[in-house]
């Protein structure tokens, strides 16, 4: 590691700003957290476009089963979509890779990678991450992982197709399905690289938040974004290694004849020698990551939302302390609820009832957060930037998707709706939509910080309203499908006349999905066009309090040209009585006798 990146607490870094940079060290193997943030964002967006296109392809099949679409044949060729009709194996592969990309590549690396990298150092007043080198490695492992995942789409037997949860034996045995051959091997390689990236990133974020806060930046003066990103990193560091263990044992079962997950299997006319393994072991290991993982996705989203709502309603976030405690409670509980994914897997029903209890407890801190957001808006002075529109949309989807979680957490009810479209609707709304909306909000809000230019608001408004309406349009009707018993991951429902009543619902879902997907073009256009042609951003466009808006618009190494700013107050002094403006920078000293919410 080069010496100039081991930023300690000393504040004299003048010499670094004159550091000569080559093309490679500035644009490719950059150690600068702002550049790495942009790298994560753009890579995440590329993966998201792939994931979204896949969803459009399989939605066409679901809405219009067996009908011919030129677009399917165009993307998938004669092998996987002969005559424009999707092949059932490719359907499963698309569903699998769509899930993997959206959960991991977009909403874990894309979301945390972008905003933890951008906001942690800037909002806590650090010159960079604790280790710029590890940070760079974190991105490049992610990049490698993305490349392998995309390559897996092109192998002859097709990409992994056992669902994004890759339950063995299905994922372990190439005899069980085509996708469990080379495609699955590449999936495991890609995820292993991904885990390395997540760990390097996570450790860095934790160390940075703990050690590199500027003077005066006590923990209770941290913006909620930093709190959320910090706990996200803690969750990642504690749970990703378990997924790695699960993946490693799966690699052994697949390649070296071990029997961790396999037992008593007769397949392809052959009795396999493995006995004594348990497929449930994989599920336990997988969901021990898998459940914290959904909070790894939603916590940063909640953090971004807190900041955006507070800034744009010109009001302090309501109940800061309760918000922090909720984040902690959610983070803690997220480790003891994984079994709610396994109520009907044959796990001991008594253990199931324990998981019912712990899972439903999560509803309490989640409810507190939702109520606090709503109260923050109360008596606000709301300025409608595209950012706050998305943040409000996020609060709505978080509630809508969250309440159905109560039904799924109730094991007695889960018996009947487990693995149906009710689940699809639930997690897409509460986790997918919420996190995607918050991420959009974050991009609109911090674009001036990322690229020094403003995005176009008009296009932002159009983008929000189409996206928001389509998002609900796609997923809300799926609750009804699920209650009627329509299983997820079915290539077509036409083998079951009892599901005929829902053909129309599925078609509407597809239409909304196509329109919603096309509307993302507005965002992509706005994003890339603004990057080069956007209006130049002022230093603090949204009149926000946090430290990132005290740095110069042009990115420099070390973030602040002179000394690191000193913090004197909590980050939410908006519309404080007796102040000339409706915002007070965190660097503004307290007046005599002035109280500070962040002091305790």
């Amino acid at each position: 590691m080069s010496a100039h990146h081991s930023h300690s607490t000393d504040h004299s870094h003048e010499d670094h700003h004159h550091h000569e940079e080559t093309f490679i060290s500035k644009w490719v193997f950059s150690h600068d957290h702002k550049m790495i943030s942009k790298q994560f964002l753009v890579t995440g967006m590329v993966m998201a476009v792939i994931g979204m296109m896949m969803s459009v392809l399989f939605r066409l099949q679901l809405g219009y089963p067996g009908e011919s679409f030129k677009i399917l044949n165009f993307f998938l060729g004669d092998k996987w979509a002969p005559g424009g009709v999707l092949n059932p194996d490719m359907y499963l592969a698309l569903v699998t890779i769509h899930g993997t990309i959206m959960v991991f590549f977009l909403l874990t690396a894309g979301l945390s990678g972008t905003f933890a990298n951008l906001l942690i150092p800037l909002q806590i007043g650090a010159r960079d991450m604790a280790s710029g080198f590890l940070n760079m490695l974190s991105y490049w492992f992610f990049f490698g992982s993305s490349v392998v995942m995309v390559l897996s789409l092109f192998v002859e037997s097709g990409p992994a197709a056992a669902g994004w949860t890759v339950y063995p034996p299905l994922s372990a045995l190439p005899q069980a399905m085509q996708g469990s051959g080379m495609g699955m091997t590449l999936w495991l390689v890609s995820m292993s690289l991904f885990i390395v990236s997540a760990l390097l990133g996570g450790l860095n974020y934790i160390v940075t938040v703990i050690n590199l806060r500027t003077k005066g930046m006590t923990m209770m003066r941290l913006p909620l974004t930093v709190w959320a990103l910090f706990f996200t990193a803690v969750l990642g560091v504690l749970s990703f290694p378990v997924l790695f263990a699960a993946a490693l044992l799966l690699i052994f079962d697949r390649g070296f004849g071990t029997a961790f997950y396999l037992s008593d299997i007769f397949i392809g006319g052959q009795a396999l020698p493995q006995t004594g393994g348990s497929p449930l072991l994989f599920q336990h290991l997988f969901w021990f990551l898998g459940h914290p993982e959904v909070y790894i996705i939603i916590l940063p989203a909640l953090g971004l939302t807190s900041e955006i709502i507070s800034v744009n309603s010109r009001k302090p976030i309501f109940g800061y302390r309760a918000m922090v405690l909720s984040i902690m409670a959610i983070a803690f509980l997220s480790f003891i609820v994984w079994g709610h994914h396994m109520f009907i897997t044959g796990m001991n029903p008594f253990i199931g009832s324990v998981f019912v209890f712990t899972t439903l407890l999560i509803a309490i801190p989640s409810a507190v957060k939702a109520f606090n957001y709503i109260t923050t808006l109360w008596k606000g002075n709301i300025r409608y930037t595209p950012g706050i529109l998305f943040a409000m949309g996020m609060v709505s989807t978080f509630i809508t998707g969250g309440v159905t979680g109560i039904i799924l957490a109730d094991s007695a009810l889960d018996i009947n709706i487990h693995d149906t479209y009710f689940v699809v609707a639930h997690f897409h709304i509460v986790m997918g939509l919420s996190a995607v909306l918050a991420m959009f909000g974050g991009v609109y809000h911090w674009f001036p910080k990322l690229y020094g230019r403003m995005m176009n608001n008009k296009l932002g408004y159009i983008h929000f309203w189409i996206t928001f309406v389509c998002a609900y349009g796609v997923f809300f009707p799926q609750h009804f499908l699920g209650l009627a018993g329509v299983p997820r991951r079915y290539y077509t429902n036409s083998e079951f006349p009892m599901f005929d009543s829902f053909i129309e619902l599925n078609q509407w879902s597809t239409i909304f999905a196509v329109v919603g997907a096309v509307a993302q073009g507005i965002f992509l256009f706005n994003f890339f066009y603004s990057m080069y042609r956007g209006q130049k951003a002022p230093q603090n466009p949204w009149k926000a309090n946090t430290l990132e808006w005290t740095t110069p618009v042009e990115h420099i190494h070390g973030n602040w040209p002179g000394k690191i700013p000193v913090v004197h107050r909590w980050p939410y002094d908006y519309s404080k009585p007796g102040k000339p403006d409706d915002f007070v920078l965190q660097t503004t000293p307290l007046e005599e006798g002035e109280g500070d919410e962040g002091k305790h």
Partner: protein
Amino acid sequence: MTFFIILVIILAIITVAQMARVYELSSELRNKKEEEISARDNKINATLMMVFLIAFFSFITYYIVEYWDKWLPPSASEHGNATDWLLNFNFIIILIVFVITHIFLFSFAFKYQRRKGQEAAYFTHSNKLELIWTVIPAIVLTVIIILGIKTWKGIMMTTAPEDSIVIELYSKQFDWTARYAGKDNALGHTNYHLISGANFLGLDSADSKGNDDIIVKGEFHIPVNKPVKFVMRSQDVIHSAYMPHFRAQINTVPGMTTMFHFTPIITTEEMRKNPRVVKEYAEINAARRSQGKEEAIFNYLLLCNKICGTSHYNMQMDIIVDSEADYQTWLSSQAVFQKEKMAEKPMPEILKIAEKK
């Protein structure tokens, strides 16, 4: 359909062109800075928030009314009524929460839009309010948890009554087999090494309990008002035995047995006469006739609900709930699995030695 695709593509092209125009036009109006949101934009978006709320609620109401008698198939098992009651109870609670929070969220969004001279309140916290909305959810959730676990216990943590009919459901890619325990009501021992073309469940001829076992495919029958204990096994990968009408589901896992028991309370014949089912199938069949498809008749179903491979979407078996008499007639017409078939493939020598040790 091609028309639809072309339309989408054309719209997309128009949109991009329009976007560039909108962008350039609004950039030309440099007197208006992006970071300064105009009063007009605030008003439009705040109003749209209100419009959205009304549209969203109408959309939900429409779906609830339209699909009122379709979304949950009628329950046909004893515990199904209890779970349906619990489901409705939970739905009422979450609907109340959903409606109230959404009204607050969107009406605040509308009401507190930025206006000239308006100032936001400096309201940082209120221990009283926060306590209220921590304690109330906690109480409601306690009720939900207690009722939920009680119902769960009643279904899953009870042993099947002694006189239950024992049926094994055996899954493999991509079909189901049912095995009845026969007169002794005990299933014969199996071993996956013995699986062969004829002995596809791997029955062990050394176990006499298997001598009266009956194996059926395509559909299986159960008598009404008698407890049935299902013992589930899987040959290759994980499947899930999902019987939505009976509110029953459990995974079938290679290497272990899983169990589920319930008591059916409505026969297939009765259910076919249920007015809701009659109406639903009349609609379904009207549509099917117009598409030249075969007419469908109501049946209880067992379907696979865990991704299991290519034909996962079509792994089903009909369940017929008979009156006791009809069930006995059907059962006696089924042939007992022949012992000779069991001996078709012997146990591999190496495993015999291992067993002796």
